């Protein structure tokens, strides 16, 4: 890994954020809502509307409005919420923190389940364990989050009464309560990922198991345990980094639904509230922050892969 490779990654992430900002700004600007009307209500006088349009700079050319928005956004200033009148930036970042807690927990739970599952399926290819994993994968990727969430809540919260159905408790205030409240959302979020990642881990492991160097290791007389642990599984784990990074995007999308269903005040729920209220600054801030988070996660995964994988020379 060289400095020029890192430089190029950095340039790419800047380009990504630029494109995303244009996209988010472009789409939201086309919203049929008139910001002035949203702020003052349907009954406002024409003068008051004009005054507020003047103040918000809605009369300026569109590219100027964009530059002003990006310039402020770069300093963390996303404007005031049309709904609450509070600054959007801090509100969204607090929400992002809660969402990241949920996302990271879901990824950890997923890894603990999916990686061993995929590997066992590959090692015992064609056997019962493999077929069971295949079935779980099929079912897992075929249930959208809102269905999984609804069904799990029905079972664990309503019928069995093991877990609270909705709500959020900060882990800093009440750790036990936080765990209990996060259990259902985390379980839901991780299930779909488990299905996908287990499948990928299985196929990666199979590729490695069928490779020439594994055959060579066996024919050198190494014990099967050494072959599997030192040669096969280690190498099969590498691509998991990339797979997980790609799934973060899917996870972030899913979090919108999951937070909505379990009433967690994360960035996804903020975004839904903003979309319903046509709260322009909040929508823009939420979408940009979410996408940037994904872009950063992907870059981190690339760097991690480059550090872990000795094969590829990045120049």
């Amino acid at each position, binding site marked *: 890994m060289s400095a020029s490779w890192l430089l190029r990654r950095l340039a*790419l992430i800047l*380009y*990504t954020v*630029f*494109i*995303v900002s244009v*996209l*988010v700004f472009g*789409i*939201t600007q*086309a*919203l*049929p809502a008139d910001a002035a009307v949203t702020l003052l209500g349907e009954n406002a006088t024409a003068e008051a509307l004009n005054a507020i349009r003047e103040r918000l700079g809605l009369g300026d050319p569109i590219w100027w409005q964009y530059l002003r928005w990006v310039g402020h956004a770069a300093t963390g200033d996303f404007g005031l919420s049309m709904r609450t009148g509070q600054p959007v930036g801090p509100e969204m970042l607090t929400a992002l923190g809660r969402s990241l807690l949920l996302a990271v927990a879901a990824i950890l739970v997923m890894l603990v389940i999916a990686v061993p599952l995929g590997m066992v399926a590959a090692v015992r290819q064609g056997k019962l364990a493999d077929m069971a994993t295949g079935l779980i994968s*099929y*079912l897992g*990727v*075929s*249930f*959208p*989050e*809102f*269905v999984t969430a*609804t*069904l799990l*809540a*029905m079972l664990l919260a*309503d019928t069995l009464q093991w877990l609270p159905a909705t709500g959020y408790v900060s882990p800093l205030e009440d750790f036990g309560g936080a765990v209990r409240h996060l259990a259902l959302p985390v379980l839901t979020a991780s299930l779909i990922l488990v299905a996908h990642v287990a499948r990928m881990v299985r196929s990666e492991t199979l590729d490695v198991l069928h490779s020439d160097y594994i055959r060579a290791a066996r024919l050198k007389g190494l014990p099967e345990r050494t072959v599997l642990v030192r040669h096969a599984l280690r190498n099969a784990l590498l691509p998991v980094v990339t797979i997980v990074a790609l799934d973060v*995007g*899917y996870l*972030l*999308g*899913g979090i*919108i*639904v999951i937070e*909505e269903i379990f009433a967690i005040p994360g960035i996804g729920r903020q*975004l*839904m509230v903003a*979309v*319903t209220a*046509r709260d322009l600054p909040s*929508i823009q801030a939420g*979408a940009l922050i*979410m*996408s*940037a988070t*994904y*872009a950063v996660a*992907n870059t981190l995964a690339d760097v991690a892969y480059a550090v872990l994988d000795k094969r590829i020379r990045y120049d």
Partner: protein
Amino acid sequence: MTDLLRRLMRTPQGAIGLLLLAVLAAACLFGPWLAPHDPEKMDFLGRFRPLGAQNWFGADQFGRDVLSRLLVGARSTLPMALAATLLGTVAGAVVGTASAYLGGRWDEAIMRTIDAVMAVPGLLLALLLVSTLGNGAGNAMIAIAVTFAPGMARVTRAVALTVRGQDYVKSATVRGESASWIIFREMLPNVMAPVVIEATIRVSFAVMLFATLSFLGLGAQPPASEWGLMVAEARQYVHQAPWIIIAPSLAIAMTAIAFNLLGDGLRDAMNPRDER
């Protein structure tokens, strides 16, 4: 074509996938005639009637027959998902093929931009688009198509680049064939297969995404019996009648499974290495 169908039937995934699809197609085509009851007919005495002879899948909060609503609702879910996938695939395939053909700086610029667009999570992009275009099934369909296009462009480009590097394409270039012959006659037939497989698997994502948008209140609008919407409406009655949630949930999952299976079956059936 019949040959492909026969090979598809020989793979277990393909056979089950086709079977499920046949059921879904029947529901889409003949749903209103197959339905045992009028899906809109309310029956206040029959509210939350459990599964039984009168209502096979039970009745909902207005006493409407769940099975009938499911059968009729197939029409507002499946065609939308198919259309969205088709639209997204065609748009993506055009961009991807063009990018691969142009090559060099253009390819680099197009692909970097597509990577950047894909940094916006799919559901978020669809959400933004629907909120701009306005709620409704048609707009949700367009939003899903736009969301799918970048991914399909990447897949198509990757396949097209592989095909472009093949010696038979070089051979055509060397003998001075026109660009349109090379693209349409030498490359496209070989690019099609993997793209069709990818698109098939994506239909299942489209079904789920469409149902999710409806669930969030942005897709199909009441009183449509779209399956995602049915789940959303039934959530508050979970204590009284779990079946009105479970039935549409399973319908969505079954559709997604069908297309996943079909895609995997197609992959096996179209793989020329397996011919023997």
